């Protein structure tokens, strides 16, 4: 936020810290005046992603091009859509109305180009119901830091953690990346793209301040939270626009590449599995001394063994596996049931990623199933085959979710490194902005983390 904006905020009596300085906030606000900060396009083209932005009003969608056509519905201001075709003053779009995807016509002037929306978690045939809303104020990052970031309902932890790591190492790099144009109300974000031969060339992406929201139009659905600075949401939106949509960056990526794209300097990766425990602290201390941004990724799953979790049930054996955290579920394709006395053969689950349940198979198995969400396991052996005791059955499986509840280490997640604590522990930052991990030992780092990248981000102001 610039000085003028700070002064305005103080005069307006907005929220302040104890010392009276304003807390940077951003609020979803409807744009109703003549000024139109939305990114409009003269002639929407087929396949273009965007939103119907009515400047504070619902947008009417009809079945045909003319005003006599049947009304399909009035959708929320900012409803995401995809262009099918445009015809003069009207545009045909595919969009979500209620629990259906429909095709209808709207005024072409309502269409604004926006990054593509993600699919619904509940029903992949639907786009998420995250209407875009305008976010005012907080135009320039002031002393940006990793803790400003707050990942939302998008699976781009690699990018949010990269932003946090870069901000921790060089607030100036974040400040240099964003330029606000008062005349247009839009932001231009500078990224870098690596070319063959290793040079980095700048890439400039311009976005408006409309952000996807969920339920509360003052609460960004993706990066950002009410009360937190706006810069992470603007960077994320520009990154999504560059790469092809929120749906594209929501598929994941690497911290190595994202940090380089933010800093203009190639990252260096390392596999934690190649480090000895004694190497870990010196590595992080050295990187901190050099002022490097540090990104680290946690492995997808943890492993668990359950001794005697099954009891006799009907013709077979059943039981519910105990998980170490309520979020945790069995990872498909990883479970095996072994008879410690070898009376029956090993049973293995045949599930694949994305399955909700699966059968168990093995030479002695007649029927068997595992429900991944509830961790309920049932197994029935062929006639004449059974363990001596139900307690002889041991179950081994992998789980995803919270890998270490005591230290709050979340699987398949990215973190930004913050500092060495007491000369012996490592403190990471969770880009969710919540569920912050406790300091961990070098041994715990090696146990849980499988990705590590550093980046020598410039500390001083860089020319745009």
């Amino acid at each position, binding site marked *: 936020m610039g000085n003028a904006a700070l002064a305005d905020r103080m005069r307006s009596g907005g929220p302040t810290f104890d010392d009276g300085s304003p807390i940077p906030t951003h609020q979803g606000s409807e744009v109703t005046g003549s000024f139109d900060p939305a990114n409009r396009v003269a002639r929407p083209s087929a396949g273009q992603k965007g939103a119907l932005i009515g400047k504070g009003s619902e947008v009417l969608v009809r079945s045909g091009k003319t005003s006599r056509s049947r009304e399909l519905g009035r959708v929320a201001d900012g409803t995401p859509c995809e262009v099918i075709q445009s015809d003069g003053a009207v545009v045909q779009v595919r969009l979500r109305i209620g629990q259906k995807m429909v095709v209808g016509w709207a005024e072409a002037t309502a269409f604004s180009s926006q990054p593509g929306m993600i699919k619904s978690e509940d029903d992949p045939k639907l786009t998420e119901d995250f209407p875009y809303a305008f976010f005012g104020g907080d135009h320039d990052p002031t002393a940006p830091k990793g803790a400003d970031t707050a990942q939302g309902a998008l699976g781009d932890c690699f990018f949010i953690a990269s932003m946090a790591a870069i901000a921790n190492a060089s607030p100036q790099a974040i400040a240099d990346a964003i330029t606000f144009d008062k005349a247009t109300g839009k932001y231009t974000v500078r990224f870098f793209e690596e070319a*063959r031969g290793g040079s980095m060339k700048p890439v400039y992406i311009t976005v408006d301040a409309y952000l996807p929201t969920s339920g509360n139009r003052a609460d960004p659905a993706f990066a950002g939270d009410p009360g937190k600075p706006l810069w992470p949401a603007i960077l994320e939106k520009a990154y999504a626009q560059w790469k092809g949509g929120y749906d594209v960056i929501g598929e994941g990526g*690497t911290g190595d590449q994202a940090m380089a794209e933010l800093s203009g300097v190639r990252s260096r*990766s390392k596999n934690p599995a*190649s480090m000895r425990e004694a190497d870990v602290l010196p590595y992080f201390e050295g990187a901190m001394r050099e002022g490097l941004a540090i990104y680290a990724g946690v492995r997808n799953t943890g492993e668990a063994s359950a001794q005697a979790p099954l009891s006799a049930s009907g013709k077979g054996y059943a039981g519910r596996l105990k998980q170490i955290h309520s979020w945790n579920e069995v990872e498909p394709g990883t479970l095996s049931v072994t008879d410690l006395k070898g009376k029956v053969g090993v049973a293995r689950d045949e599930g694949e990623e994305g399955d909700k349940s699966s059968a168990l198979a093995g030479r002695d198995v007649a029927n068997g199933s595992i429900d991944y969400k509830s961790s309920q396991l049932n197994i029935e052996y062929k006639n004449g085959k059974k363990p001596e005791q139900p307690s002889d059955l041991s179950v081994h499986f992998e789980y995803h979710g919270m890998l270490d509840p005591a230290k709050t280490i979340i699987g398949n997640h990215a973190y930004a490194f913050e500092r060495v604590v007491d000369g012996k522990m490592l403190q990471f930052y969770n880009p969710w902005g919540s569920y912050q991990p406790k300091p961990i030992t070098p041994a715990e780092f090696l146990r849980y983390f499988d990705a590590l990248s550093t980046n020598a981000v410039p500390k001083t102001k860089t020319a745009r």
Partner: protein
Amino acid sequence: MTDRPEKRLRLPPGAPLPLGAAPGGILVLAPGEHEGALFVEAALRVEGEGHAPGVAPTAVIHAHGRGAAVHAAGDDCTLQLVGLVLRGGRAELGAALCLDGAMRVEAEGCVFEAGRADQGGETVGGLRGALHLRGCRLAGGALLTGIVDATFEDCVVEGDLLLREGAGLTFVGGEVRGHIDLRGSTTRAPSLKLSGGAKAKVRNHSAQPGAVEEAP
């Protein structure tokens, strides 16, 4: 793990893989499983003992879920992999083989078994550098992104082969049993050249397509 291999080092099964590679060193892996992820930042040749053309490799590098089975992160050097199975990896990019250094990786007669990777590179992932695979089997999907340049010669890819950003792939002979799926960003596009009777179904993104060339 040991620190560095001598110029030529034979490792029996169960012996720890070295932490680093002596420039120009040769690791010979005896048949059987070798535990640990191999992180390579200098020139190195790793070969399965007794490897021969047309014979299934029996020397296995098993990562046991700790990063990529082989991670090539050096600059201006070459890693050669011959007659190996790479198994059990989990990584952001390339579970069996991850190439993110500006180096060259050559693999011949290798099997890359599917691990788990965040973006789809369950077997092989490349971000930069040059990758040349010959007579290899990729038992799952692969992801080539960033600015990596790859040539797959007489290889079988059993899953989808994803080409993203500015990656380039020349696919000569061989087969992709899933799709070759191309998608660029708004500033660059991947490129694909199919030749030598390669069997592949190509799926190109409508808004951000790649360049596809088919030659006899």
